[in-house]
């Protein structure tokens, strides 16, 4: 059984149908990517999974459990954690406080402190900036913080929304490298990206989303070589 199973969900913004019956699955320990252009419905998919939006039809199962009717905070407590689009860190809190917010649902103080040390090893730049207000971090650092904050929740599935958006090419590489590292440490990842080549390059499995529909899917490498994907995204 897959860790996350999305089955034919339809999601609406009032009358606009943003997702027109998409299905996908994420297996344990995989990196699965959902690629697509601007406005395809990638963020909408993640919002539906994390409970900020509710599908009008279809089901979302996490670890076999139907998420229908759960509030966003309940879903977070089941281990589904999002790194939101545009690095929405808490700009007025410090780096340390942001990390602490990531562990909000956890009670195991001791393990939380350990995880914090782990984050400092994963992102050494954050260590020097623990007392700094997060809003003053550079773009790359904010992405690190948003990722670290999500990891502080010990997610069973990490949802990442366009982590490479707006970053310089060098930093983009670093971001994908980090995603690999995190995955290698045992975290399952659903990665949403416009940067199809890079995302498909590290993914076990990929889906291509267009106008609220999944038009293609397959192993990451396979899709990277697919003629239609090449034409659409690789120019």
């Amino acid at each position, binding site marked *: 059984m897959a860790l996350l199973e999305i089955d034919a969900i339809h999601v609406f913004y009032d009358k606009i149908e943003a997702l027109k019956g998409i299905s996908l699955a994420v297996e344990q320990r995989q990196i699965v990517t959902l690629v697509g252009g601007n406005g395809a419905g990638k963020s909408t998919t993640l919002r539906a999974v994390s409970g900020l939006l509710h599908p009008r039809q279809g089901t979302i199962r996490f670890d076999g459990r139907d998420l229908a009717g759960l*509030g966003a905070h309940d879903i977070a407590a089941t281990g589904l954690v999002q790194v939101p689009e545009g690095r*929405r860190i*808490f700009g007025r809190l410090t780096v340390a406080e942001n990390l602490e917010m990531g562990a*909000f*649902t956890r009670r195991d103080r001791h393990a939380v402190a350990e995880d914090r040390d782990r984050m400092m090893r994963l992102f050494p730049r954050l260590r020097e900036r623990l007392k700094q207000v997060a*809003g003053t971090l*550079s773009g790359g650092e904010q992405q690190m913080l948003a990722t670290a904050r999500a990891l502080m929740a010990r997610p069973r599935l990490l949802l990442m929304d366009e982590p490479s958006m*707006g970053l310089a090419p060098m930093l983009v590489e670093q971001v994908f490298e980090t995603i690999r590292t995190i995955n290698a440490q045992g975290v399952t990842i659903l990665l949403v990206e416009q940067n199809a080549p890079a995302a498909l390059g590290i993914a076990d499995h990929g889906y291509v989303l267009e106008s609220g529909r999944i038009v293609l899917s397959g192993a990451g490498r396979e899709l990277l070589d697919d003629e239609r994907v090449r034409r659409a995204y690789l120019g």
Partner: protein
Amino acid sequence: MSGVHTPPGLAAPIHPILRRAVLTGLAFGAGAVHLTVVGVVLMLHQRWIVVGTLSLGEATLLAIAAGAGAMAAANAGTAAGARIMLGLLAGAVAAAPLAALAVLIDLVSLRAIFIALSPDLLAMLTLGLGPATGIALLIAGGAGAGLLGAALQQSPRAVIRAVLPGATAVVVAGVFQELIQLMLQQYEGVVNDVRAFLYSWEGLNPAGAITIFAVTALLGEAVGLRRRRRPAHAPPRDPRRARMMRAGIALLVLAVLPAFAGSYIGQVLMLVGLYILMGMGLNLEIGLAGLLDLGFVAFFAVGAYTTALLTTESAHALLHLSYWLAMPVAVLLSILVGVLFGLPVLGVRGDYLAVATLGLGEIVRVIVQSDFAAPLLGGAQGILEIPKPRIGPYVLGSPVALFYVTLAAAGVAAFVAWRLENSRLGRAWMALRDDEDVAQALGINLIQCKLLAYGLGAAFAGLAGSIFATMLTSVYPSSFQLLISINVLALIIVGGMGSLPGVVLGAVALIGLPELLREFGEYRYLFYGAVLIVMMRLRPEGLWPSDVRQRELHARDETLALDAGSDPLPVQPR
């Protein structure tokens, strides 16, 4: 000279430095004329600072001319002597529009339009000496004040440090003469003798003014010297400890002052205390949780009416509880109403929330006022005969006694607010304030947290309302206007969003001071407005900002620096 625009009407080009002084003078003069025409100056003229010598109105005009002089001197790049002469010029120019106004009043009566332009005003401006001499004196006075202002501006710091506090002290002692005299009069002996030495009946007498000026100037000098004498390399004092010290001293003054100052001050402080309570409540909602609530007065009303219904000796009584039993019930009911109040606006954010809560607040007032609820709540006639609280046989009847009740309540409330701020809940509020969606996605229960913010905020307001009811021994719907919500909001902003000591300072500045200036009637709101504007210009973070707020404003500077500097290019390769 090129580049400076000269009006075509002036034949000979004026030297730019002179021009600047003249313009400065005219700007200040225009301000003076404005204050005069709207009637403030004449109103202030009713009040002596130094009996028979200087009225508050005259002092205001002189201060304006001195300000023109100081500014003209500060802006000029010439030798010191020349700058002082520029000050003289600017002061004279500042007086010129007033002189013109005096001539105008003398020639035509404009009272139909501007009621303040009366013969009394003319007499004041010309010192009762008739137009010709009077106007000459008016301009000479302006020139003199401008000269003094410029001279002071050019003086060494030591002089400024003595003169400014001295002058301020004289004005304060003069303006609040009635209060101070009443306070001192309570005591026989030396205290009263000091009063008699300083004051003639309606204000300071010249000897008193000079004494106060001299003593304060010396004090200012002494404090300044002591500061300077601390060696530069000595470790800076721990700012946190210094803050605690200041807060402690302020608290001590608050606790001790009313006992000596008598019932009027007690009453004012009590009002300040009620606003502090409400400020701390709204601070939880706005400062921490970011919920802009303009219906806050509703909770205050619930606290007051609950207390009234449970304790009154009139026919409206539901029960005849003692005050100490009614108060907790009032607080609990306020919490309940706060939660109910939060429910319909759960999904509303930002500006829309302000409008929605404003509506909810008004609904509560309208219900209380309605005929429909009149059998229960008394309608516009309100509820009377609310007894004062008692401790055993002792009735807490005086404003001072009730002030101590308020102070104790505020102390408890401050402790609760402080603990909340540093709790998990407080952290969750701050996260919600910054980004609702992300906060939820991290496991924060939005509904629970928001309702708790409304409920706990309401608890503080309900407590204040409860004390308010027993203070007035009656409640009327007209006491629960929107203006109260706005006052509370303003005091939080002036004090410093999210800061507990800020709430206290804000309440003293915006509630206490205008109350003490009550005799100036509606004009005191002029003061209120001026304070708000000046504060937002000079100190947008508030009088005593919270650490977080300070960090934010500081952070903004850092961000600007970063943008200009070394930030890696945030460019999207497409």
